[in-house]
């Protein structure tokens, strides 16, 4: 089983390395097939591992394996260590399964673009990094995976190097994530200093030995900082919408299904740490609630189809944070899984639309596509209904169980529960606003002019069947866990992360009824506003402008960090850099050059100089020795 876990981890890396090494010796399409195959191999290996694991006793379902130990100093060991347990296995399945579908989709989507090989090599590297993150056996490897996925995200957002917007977005994502990486690293320093190990079992076992609440709080806060940045939660969320500059499969894989959910994974994986610092855990839940409301509001006025879905992703991850923060780990992971299905579906379907409309992404220029792209319409409809939590699609089961758990978690939980319900309404509203604007009404002039229906050639087929598969998953994916009836997924996760909230059947039913009702209300309002009256955006006058500026987050960052930083930098440049640093650097380089010149002067090329240096060196040494001891 451990072997299959290693295969799962290393197979995408092998593909990435192979493509890099082969260079032009592999065809563009070959690179795509190779990567897709390698990720599929990962998925099969993960399945094999699953079948072995479920036949074991629940308490024994945890296997660590170290490929090699790099350095060991006392108990602190650095090495490539992986851990296979129910939690990591669930993530492996999601990452490799959804990943395989999305990479297969990319074969069609990226067909004909420049540098396909580079794209697929990056994709392979990303899947490896993500698997490394979830399979990590200690916090250091987790951080390594964390950094690597950030790197891949950077590379893939900026894949189209010729567009300045893509480069800027890539930089923004990287910098924001680097802040998160740094806070994790700081947390790990404190942790090593306190418990002298970073291995999960060792850390969790010695969590009681940590001296002082402050240390625990600091560790949890640092880790949360990383989680918030990676998962695009308030206040580190502004990079995600910009990240939509990347190719659509990248948005689907990295910025919807897998990487951005890493923060949730961390909250669940490191639950003993967060439970020890309960204030921070509550903070995580609160951040989730704030994000889901805020992102839902902003999504209402977005005009770029991918950005709408991106804000929706932020909002849905808010739900997961809410669940994981309130210790309802199983439900949080459940929502993570279903979200991966329906959000990847929405992105990939959006990709088909964008493809059909010659890369146009503005929903105001779309319309009436339901007749022209009927299958895509069906896919988006399934995704949208699942997202809005309408039964019996997957989103209904997972979102409602997260909310029901919140209802059980005291007063704080009930406040968050209310926020979550409002969020459900907003979700339905913005989702169906998008659907009605894109598919409803009469075809717009732009659509009439530019639409070219996908031909039934091979690239399109790759895109079609993967979307179909994801649509199927978005429908049935939620049936694995039905609140109050059966919950194998939560039971599976139980040994790793034990949930502390257990909603009653009444709470479940109350939540579901309210959520579905609100969802339907949202759809109805969307129909009334955007389909019946066909308005692009709701007329909310002042509020609308605020929302269009995304609640001024970018401006706030500009004011809080960029302006002062440039101001300080300008002054530092004038009063510190110029006279002190530049002066001294100039002096230093001049001095070094001068010295360097002197050394070459000494190097005369004449034997007598060399022998003189050798002889006088020896004589000097002897004289000094004699003088010291004499």
């Amino acid at each position, binding site marked *: 089983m451990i072997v299959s876990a290693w295969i799962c981890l290393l197979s995408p890396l092998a593909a990435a390395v192979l493509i890099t090494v082969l260079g032009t010796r592999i065809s563009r399409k070959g690179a795509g097939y190779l990567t897709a195959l390698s990720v599929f191999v990962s998925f099969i290996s993960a399945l094999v591992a699953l079948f072995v694991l479920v036949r074991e006793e629940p308490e024994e379902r945890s296997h660590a394996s170290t490929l090699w130990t790099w350095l*060991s100093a006392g108990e602190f060991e650095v090495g490539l260590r992986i851990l296979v347990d129910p939690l990591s296995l669930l993530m492996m399945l999601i990452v490799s399964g959804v990943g395989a579908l999305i990479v297969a989709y990319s074969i069609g989507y990226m067909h004909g673009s420049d540098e396909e090989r580079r794209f697929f090599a990056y994709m392979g590297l990303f899947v490896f990094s993500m698997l490394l993150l979830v399979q990590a056996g200690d916090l250091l490897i987790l951080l390594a995976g964390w950094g690597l996925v950030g790197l891949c995200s950077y590379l893939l957002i900026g894949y189209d190097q010729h567009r300045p917007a893509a480069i800027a977005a890539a930089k923004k994502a990287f910098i924001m994530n680097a802040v998160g990486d740094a806070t994790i690293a700081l947390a790990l320093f404190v942790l090593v200093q306190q418990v002298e190990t970073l291995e999960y079992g060792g850390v969790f076992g010695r969590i009681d030995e940590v001296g002082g609440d402050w240390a625990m709080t600091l560790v949890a806060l640092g880790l949360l900082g990383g989680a918030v940045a990676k998962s695009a939660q308030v206040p580190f969320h502004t990079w995600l919408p910009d990240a939509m500059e990347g190719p659509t499969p990248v948005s689907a894989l990295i910025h919807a299904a897998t990487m951005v959910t890493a923060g949730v994974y961390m909250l669940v994986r490191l639950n003993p740490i967060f439970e020890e610092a309960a204030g921070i855990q509550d903070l995580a839940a609160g951040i989730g609630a704030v994000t889901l409301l805020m992102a839902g509001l902003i999504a209402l006025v977005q005009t770029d189809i991918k950005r709408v879905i991106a804000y929706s992703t932020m909002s849905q991850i808010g739900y997961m944070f809410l669940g994981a923060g309130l210790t309802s780990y199983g439900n949080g992971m459940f929502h993570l899984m279903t979200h991966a299905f329906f959000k990847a579906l929405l992105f990939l379907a959006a990709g088909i639309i964008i493809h059909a409309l010659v890369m146009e992404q503005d929903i105001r220029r779309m319309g009436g596509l339901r007749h022209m792209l009927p299958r895509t319409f069906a896919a988006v409809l399934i995704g949208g209904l699942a997202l809005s939590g309408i039964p019996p699609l997957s989103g209904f089961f997972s979102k409602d169980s997260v909310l029901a758990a919140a209802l059980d978690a005291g007063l704080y939980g009930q406040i968050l529960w209310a926020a979550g319900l409002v969020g459900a309404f907003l979700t339905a509203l913005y989702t169906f606003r998008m659907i009605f604007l894109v598919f409803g009404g009469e075809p717009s002039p732009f659509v009439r002019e530019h639409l070219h229906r996908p031909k039934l050639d091979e690239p399109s087929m790759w895109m079609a069947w993967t979307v179909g598969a994801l649509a199927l998953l978005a429908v049935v994916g939620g049936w694995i866990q039905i609140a109050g009836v059966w919950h194998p997924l939560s039971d599976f996760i139980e040994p790793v992360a034990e949930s502390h909230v257990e909603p009653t059947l009444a709470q479940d039913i109350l939540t579901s009824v309210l959520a579905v009702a609100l969802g339907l209300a949202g759809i109805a309002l969307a129909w009334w506003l955007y389909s019946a009256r066909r308005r692009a955006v709701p007329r909310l006058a002042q509020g609308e402008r605020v929302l269009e500026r995304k609640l001024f987050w970018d401006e706030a960052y500009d004011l809080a960090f960029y302006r002062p930083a440039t101001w300080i930098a300008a002054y530092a440049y004038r009063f510190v850099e110029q006279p002190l640093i530049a002066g001294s650097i100039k002096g230093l380089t001049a001095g070094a050059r001068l*010295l*360097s010149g002197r050394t070459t002067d000494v*190097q005369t090329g004449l034997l007598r100089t060399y022998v003189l240096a*050798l002889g006088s*060196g*020896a004589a000097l*040494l002897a004289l000094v*020795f*004699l003088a010291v001891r004499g």
Partner: protein
Amino acid sequence: MTTPAVDWFALSPTLALLAAAGLALLGSVLVPHRATRVFSAVVCALGFVGAGVAAGLLYWKSPNATLEVADAIRRDRFGALAQIVLAGVGFLAVGISYAQRVRRDHIGEYYALLAAAGGGMVFLVEAQNLMTLFLGLEWFSICLYILCAIEIDRVGSLEAGLKYLIVGSFGSAILLFGSALVYGATGALEFGEIAAAIEQGSLQDDGLVLAGLAMLLAGLGFKASAAPFHMWTPDVYEGAPTPVTAFMAAATKAVALVLTMRILVTAFPAEEDLWTIAVAVIACVSLAWGNIAALVQRNLKRMLAYSSVSHAGFMLIAIAANNELGGRALLYYLIPYSAASLGAFAVIAARERELGDRVTLDNIGGMGWERPTLGVAMWIFMLAFAGLPLTGGFVGKFYVFAAAYDRGWWWLVIAGVIATAISLYYYLAVIRAMYMRMPAELRLAPAGGSPPREALLSASVVACAAVTVGSFFLVEPLIDLAEKAASQLPF
């Protein structure tokens, strides 16, 4: 009169290379001309492989250090590990040399001398008395003098050989004089007996011993090209055929430093307070001089020559620490350092053969794009020299600094760190030159069209790169080996 018992096993690495040298020499006159190159190269490579295997067995079978052959050599893991490194260096040097344009009637001699030099080196690292010390030193030095001058049609090569010969003789003379003084004062040749004699006779303040120690240090510092005894290094490295330079830079330095540590630790523990400071000062001078002089070099071979001076400084820090950690650090450091310097000179050799001219920062431009494998390998070597992570150079420097810190000499650590910072400038300059300039800027057309790519050279470079990177990832087992070896020295 009793005759000494000869431990043939302890001598087996030397004998393997000696046999290879003899065979290659005979091959150069008895084998048909067409086959001379293949025959002698293969024999030489086999000699190094044999020496490596024998040294490996020696390491394995020597859990306790013993004195052998009338106390002339010491059979221990410290020497055996150094022998393994030397055998690897020699083996790869054969691969780098293979396509070098050596005159046909010198080709057999070339490999014979290479094997003979290797034989002298693996003999020397086992040396345990002043006689074997001098014998081994001259043995490999004489071979190297000729190897430097073997391209007799090229003035530079002749000049290098002659300079090395004359300055080298002077260095050997100083070493020999130092040995004589030490022998005169203590009446002992074997290192352990010297230590005992100094101890018993209270000769710590004896003028002869002190002067002898200083001269021994100078003589060994000369071979290790530590400043200020390094003056020959840039000229000889530049003039000698590049594969020979590669071999010298990696192997000679390794031998000299390993032996310096052995003799100082075993023969002069009583003078510890003196020589640790002296070695530390020599290390600082080497670091400063090597790095500063390298800054303005345009010629890559000269630059790497100065860089090798600075690396002698780093390794001398490990010796100055005079503790077991230092021994570990030295033995470990040799592995990535040897691989990186062999590889870097091999890349230069490849470029040299392409251009038919000396390689400078200007005409290496674009090489990273033209020859991606060599370009990536050069990246790795430069990063290893600079001591950046993902290469063994990082771990090596880390251990060297740890050893100095362990002794409480944080000032030495600071000196090392500053030197590392300076060195980044010129190491990165090489990478920048290889990639940042477009091939269009290349002013020199390749001589006579692009020569065929040499599989053996590329394979050697890849092997060097693999060792450089691999030593980073396999720290644990390698340090373990070095620890077992260093623990056999009487720190």
